[in-house]
């Protein structure tokens, strides 16, 4: 009984499950071979080599000597079933590294990618440390988590008055 129930459950859902699995596989395989998408994806990684300094797909030169040739090469590469890396490598061998719109993330070229973030992080960290040192060295006039308005010391008050006087007097003349 149990077996027959399991069989009926299985037979009831097996067909649709198989259909869904096939559909998913078909979709995935279609997506994988969507030449239009691959063409645009790879085209965005390449430069036009006519000297216009434009991306391959963005080059709009009338009668550009390079654009058509490069696009044909790209279409041929995709149609012949080569993977992305092989196609790009073919371009590099033909036109040199300058044909890639961004440097590859290996070898010395990795420095190009790392440096901006490294400098930003170092600068942010360095500034944070510097500010922390400044704050520690200061006599504690105002703390970050206590309201300025709480009970300002006479020094703060006179500073504030001086600032108000300076700002309101000089605002018009500058």
């Amino acid at each position, binding site marked *: 009984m149990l077996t027959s129930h399991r069989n009926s459950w299985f037979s009831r859902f097996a067909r649709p499950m198989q259909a869904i699995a096939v559909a998913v596989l078909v979709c995935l395989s279609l997506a994988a071979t969507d030449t239009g998408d691959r063409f645009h994806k790879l085209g*965005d*990684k390449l*430069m036009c080599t006519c000297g*216009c*300094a*434009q*991306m391959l797909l*963005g*080059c*709009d030169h*009338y*009668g550009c000597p390079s654009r*058509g040739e490069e696009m044909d090469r790209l279409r041929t590469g995709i149609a012949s079933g080569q993977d992305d890396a092989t196609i790009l490598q073919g371009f590099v061998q033909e036109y*040199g*590294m*300058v*044909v*890639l*719109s*961004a*440097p590859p993330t290996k*070898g*010395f*070229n990795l420095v*190009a*990618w790392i*440096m*901006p*973030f490294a*400098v*930003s992080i170092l*600068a*942010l960290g360095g*500034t944070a440390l510097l*500010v*922390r040192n*400044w*704050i520690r*060295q*200061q006599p504690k*006039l*105002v703390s*970050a*988590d*206590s*309201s*300025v*308005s709480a009970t300002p010391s006479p020094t703060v*008050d006179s500073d*504030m*008055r001086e*600032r*108000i006087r300076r*700002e*309101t007097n*000089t*605002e*018009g*003349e*500058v």
Partner: protein
Amino acid sequence: MHFTVLLATFVSHCKINIDRSDNANRLALHMLFVRLPAPVRKSKEIPRTRAGWSDTEFMAAFGSFALLIGLVLAAYNLFAGGIALRLIAVGGPARVNPEKMAETARKAGIATFVTVTAAAFALVWAAFHNDFSIEYIVEHSNIALPAPYKFAALWSGQEGSLLLWSWLLAAYGFVLRLTHKSDVKLHAYAGTILAAVQVFFLLLLNFAAPPFSLVRGGIAPPDGNGLNPLLQYPEMVIHPPMLYLGYVGFTIPFTFALGALMMRYPGEKWIHTTRRWTMVAWMFLTCGIFLGMHWAYAVLGWGGYWGWDPVENASLMPWLTGTAFLHSVMMQEKRGMMKQWNVWLIFSTFLLSILGTMLTRAGLVSSVHAFAQSSIGNWFVAFLVIILAVCIFTYILQRDHLKSEHHLESLVSRESSFMFNNLILLAACFTILWGTLFPVISEYVQGSKVTMGAPWYNQVTVPIGIFLLFLTGIGPLLAWRASSFRGLRRNFILPIIAFVVTAIVLLAVGLKPWTSEGVFYSLMTFSLATAVSTAVLSEFFRGANVVHRQTGKNLAAATLLLIRRNTRRYGGYIVHLGLVIIFIGFAGIPFNRSAEQAMAPGDTMNVGPYTLKNLGNTQESNANYDTEFSLLDVYENGKKVLNQPMAPEKRVYAASGTPQTMVANHSTLRWDLYVIYEGRDATTDLPIIKAFLNPLVSWIWIGLAIMVFGTLVALVPSLNPSRAAVTVVKPSPAVTAEAMNAVGSGD
């Protein structure tokens, strides 16, 4: 006295006849310093005056002489001014009166403006009179060129653009020297340093890139080669002058900063003096950059507005450091902090202007801009080294004068936010400089160049840009010195709610940030833009509410009064709002769509919700160019959208034989339908039409207008507190920084 002798020498030599094949300005120099053998005149066709000049030769010689005299005057300004300032500094008896000497130097500086103006006039006159005996006019103009573009020929080539630079510098110097009475000594220092920069540009114009060179062989061609078709666009008449006004404008705060450091100027008055100069220069540079973007979008026809070209980068770098300077200089004004930082920021801004010019003109990096790859790059290298050496030397000598009066007291303060904002702006500047220079470094290290294209810049700069947008919102919400927790909670609650609600709404309407990096950045940008706008608008509302309570004026009038009472602060907020709107425009990029098709008459093509129907293809000709274009009707959901068909075209200019795309663009707040005529299909001979659907592009131009408006507001003097309708709240022991900010007394 000295000038009279020099001028007499010029006049006495001017009677020598000119060989038309000679370079006019070199001839002028030789006439001054060398006794030339009588030149052989090769052409007799051109009618000459009694003095032996043809009209055309006269204008070329006039321009050359004007530049030469300008150089002599600027050099006098530099040396006499320098000696006078030195004599004043050391004191003691002197054979000459240093004050009088400094005054003659100032007047020589004013006269430099007159001579450089004369030279610029001569070149424009030559362009308008089709004087093809001058090589520059042959290269950059022709008879059929419309009048406004003949004027634009002044800056369309290397020599002319250097002349424009020199003229603008002289014009800024003219104003600076006329307003010297506000602080004679500081202006004398600034004027002398300015003269040094002027001497450099006049040396270039006289020896390295002379704009008045006569055509080789001495025979003027019947017509010129015409202006580069890419430049034959209305915005090109204003984009370069705007950009140059910005670049050159930063020379003024630079000269004041260096001068103030040299003379150990007490106090921060030099900052007050240069604030307007800096803001004006910044505004022009902003306009110049965005006009360039709009030009690239409307003319180049690749569907985008920023290509990370080295010349574009060169304009962005000083803009970033200039923006950092505008922010951090407030810390020096208010708290006497960051003095060394500010001095180096303005030095860097000026140096980056020169570096950018050097990079592109020395041919170090390849650029789509025309006048790269020339020999004048070495001049810029030398100038850059000299200026840097002077800056470093002066800084080392006077470093003790730049000690901060205060340090940061809290990480959660306006000062701290300015510091981080500065840091991010500089990080962005470094990134762009790194990207621009890396091909050169790579060639040096690896032996092969690499390309730093848009994919690299987008990956690296977009996160930095988004963080900057975040700081734009945070800064105004923090009080000077330190912010209280209560103040933070009050100021941040609304922006945080706005951020969260926007993100949820965008996710609900179908934005999927996990599908691509671009969509994720868009989601972040939209959400942050709402948060920042909320923060800025609530600042306006809070301040206006206080004024409303104090004066009884309605909210609109109270807002106006609030702005007038502190134009600098609220003008700045308006600039921030403009920036937010520009970022919203950028956030549309990941959703760009395009379609391309060879279209016979009657064919249709779909892009997004639009259907383009080709009505026909046409060819026309006029004196300046031949053109072919397609007429396209635009439908949305079967309904015709435009009364007139779109007409993308391709022109071929007669003078140069150069083709040029003319974009047809239907712009709305939602998106731009951007159509180009790509050319003809090689096999079918049908026109290839490419259509882009670029969302939110018009927001960028609207944002620019708001930024410019905000800058203009900030330039207007605030109402004098005594004349203002609202009395400033009398400071009491309980007054808080937040309360001060709310009534618009802080920045």
